[in-house]
């Protein structure tokens, strides 16, 4: 479970911003907060400012920042790019080299990048790489196959099929995650890699963060109170997105809201538990019929 941090904070929903307001300008402090206070397994650092259209931060400066963040936490980190294919490759190459031996995760490789040039440094410097396909099983297959052909062992490859948040394309993600995982279990070797979900995307849904006054239909009879508190809606949205995709195979999650993380841990741990302490029968769930609530 990774928590997102940014070298340049994008517009964030208020409940999310609230949790990070003291560290938005300081990626190293942000990462530290994620790991120490919110118990992330690792932070995910998105180097959005490297985009030539945004700030064009140089690969060397990006590498320095990665170094600062690594100094601040005692976990590995996920190094995310800006989404600009050419620049991401440049940044990844530089950072891969300067962090050789740290075994970081780079996010992500897309079809419009030079696969050979992106993958080689990962192999040489022993890092992990996330291949990002856009809800398209053929694209996912091609990315996984090509990066394995370039020498990346399956133990260093992670597949991200793209996460559409709850109500915003999650149905596509649900089926693609299931299909790639089923294909792997049925023996298709290229897919025998862990799956990653950017569950933070759940915040795209306006129901996750907008005020009830805006969301409520004009003819709604329900009292306004039953819409709130909006601080709880977003975390439910984010945790539901992560857990539903967890049920169809995702193993690495990028998230944002501390309460979503707590919920995710609470249910995720229950689902993944292999030995039962107390059986369903002993708990007598049939008593629900007569409970006095």
């Amino acid at each position, binding site marked *: 479970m990774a928590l997102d941090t940014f070298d340049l904070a994008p517009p964030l929903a208020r409940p999310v911003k609230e949790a990070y307001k003291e560290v938005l300008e300081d990626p190293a402090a942000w990462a530290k907060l994620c790991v120490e206070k919110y118990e992330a397994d690792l932070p995910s650092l998105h180097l959005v400012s490297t985009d030539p259209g945004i700030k064009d931060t140089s690969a060397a400066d990006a590498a320095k920042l990665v170094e600062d963040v690594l100094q601040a936490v005692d976990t590995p980190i996920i190094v995310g790019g800006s989404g600009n294919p050419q620049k991401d490759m440049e940044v990844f190459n530089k950072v891969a080299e300067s962090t050789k031996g740290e075994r970081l995760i780079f996010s992500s490789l897309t079809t419009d990048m030079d696969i050979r040039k992106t993958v080689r440094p990962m192999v040489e410097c022993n890092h992990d790489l996330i291949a990002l396909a856009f809800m398209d099983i053929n694209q996912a297959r091609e990315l996984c196959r090509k990066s394995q052909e370039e020498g990346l062992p399956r133990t260093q490859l992670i597949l991200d099929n793209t996460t559409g948040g709850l109500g915003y394309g999650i149905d596509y993600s649900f089926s693609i995650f299931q299909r790639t995982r089923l294909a792997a279990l049925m023996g298709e070797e290229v897919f025998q890699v862990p799956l990653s979900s950017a569950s933070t995307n759940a915040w795209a849904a306006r129901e996750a963060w907008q005020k009830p006054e805006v969301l409520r*239909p004009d003819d709604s009879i329900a009292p306004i109170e039953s819409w709130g508190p909006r601080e709880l809606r977003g975390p439910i949205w984010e945790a539901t997105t992560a857990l539903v995709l967890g049920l169809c195979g995702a193993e690495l999650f990028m998230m944002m809201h501390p309460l979503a993380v707590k919920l995710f841990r609470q249910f995720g741990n229950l689902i993944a538990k292999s030995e*039962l302490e107390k059986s369903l029968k002993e708990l007598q769930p049939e008593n629900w019929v007569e409970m006095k609530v």
Partner: protein
Amino acid sequence: MRILRPLDIYKYLPQTNCRECGEPNCMSFAAKLVEDRTLAEKCTPLFRDPKYKEKLAKYLEAIRPPVKAIQIGVGHNAVNVGGKVVMFRHDLTWHNPTPLALDVHDEMDDATITDRVKFVNDFKYTRIGADLTLDMVAVRCVSKSPEEFCKTVSRVSKLTAKPLILCSYSPEALEEALMAAGANRPLIYAATKENWKEVGELALKYKCPVAVSSPGDLSTLKSLAKTLREGYGIDDIVLDPGTGTEGDSFAETLNNFAALRRAAIEDGDVTVGYPLVGIPAAVWLSPDEDENATKIRESVLSSLLMTMYADLLIVHSSDIWVLLAALVWRQSVYTDPRTPPSVKPGIYELGKPDEKAPLLVTGNFALTYFLVKEDAGKLKEPSWLLVADSEATSIESAVAGRKFTVDKITDAMNESAIREKVKHKSIIIPGYAARLSGELEDALKDWRVFVGPRDSSAIKDFIEKVWKKETYGEELTKQVLPLDRKKSG
């Protein structure tokens, strides 16, 4: 897993090519039926003509889904639960979206009951052109008094036309309630290993579907269902394997749901080929100190049970913020994966826009379209909405996946001849497509490209405070002709 082929059906059809079903011949009807693109009942001669009696029986047997569809309630409020054919929705689609039942009980005061039932009746949240609703009311017998239970059931059935679930383990209480409401095909909950004889007889007598309950004990559940099916000839059954909400019993719950569904679909086990009921309301057996924490658990549990094959859910919380995530997940997972929700690319007129009206562009994912349309509809004036083909994905992922591109936007502009319809030569693109703005300006030459808000709820502000000012100066309200402003900065 059994997916039907056209020939599996064709052999039981009249094979007269009468076209009453609307298809050119019986084979093509069979082909459509296996793809779930027509209805079984549309072969009217088969149902009407006594000479097809034998064929009809075999036809119904052949098309019976591995998980039977059970009707609860009557009239247009009736719900169908189950009717599942596949484990994975990508193999076909999941039918019959999981109905949500809200509970009431016979020790609640009248006002509470009325409020809760009215909430079910009136709940409506419109999303992507569809209404999300609550579907049923579950009435629980808490008082242990058949008379009290019957009174409450009668009151509830007067308050709503939505189907009921009558919840008690006492055959006496159930019978009292059935005398009052049995004609409307409520679901009887539940037959257990203690009361199955009496409850089975009630199901037969009142011709109502019945739930079989055996929490945490699948072999008893199975033998109860088998007894009712084979011994009593009851075929309208719902299975309750138990919903554990505490600690690791939740993992066992999900495993049980999956095991039953797999047995029905993959092994063709007809004794468990019935819909499954999940009970998120059971979180209230172990409430947290903070009430909201329990409500959140109920919300998340509802979505997870639906993911793991629950065909019917009984919930207790009546807060929109608790229900909405589950309802939206239901809407998502029950869309037909073969036809992604989309609208036709092209130009849409919101109101009666003229040559001065703003031109907005968005993608053709149905959700995106409906949201933008709704928000742009709140503008002071009409507007043009240009829908480019984003391959039915949201703007954010379509931009990242190169599905919403400058070419797609210019294609849509060319096909709709929108350049001749507006004079101001400006176009507003979504905030998530900001990175396309430079390339689009190059492609459109003397046009100005505005980057609008990421979320269309801010479009009104944007039009008023940015677009109008930049496009017309501040003179528009005085009806001065538009200024031909060049791009500044």
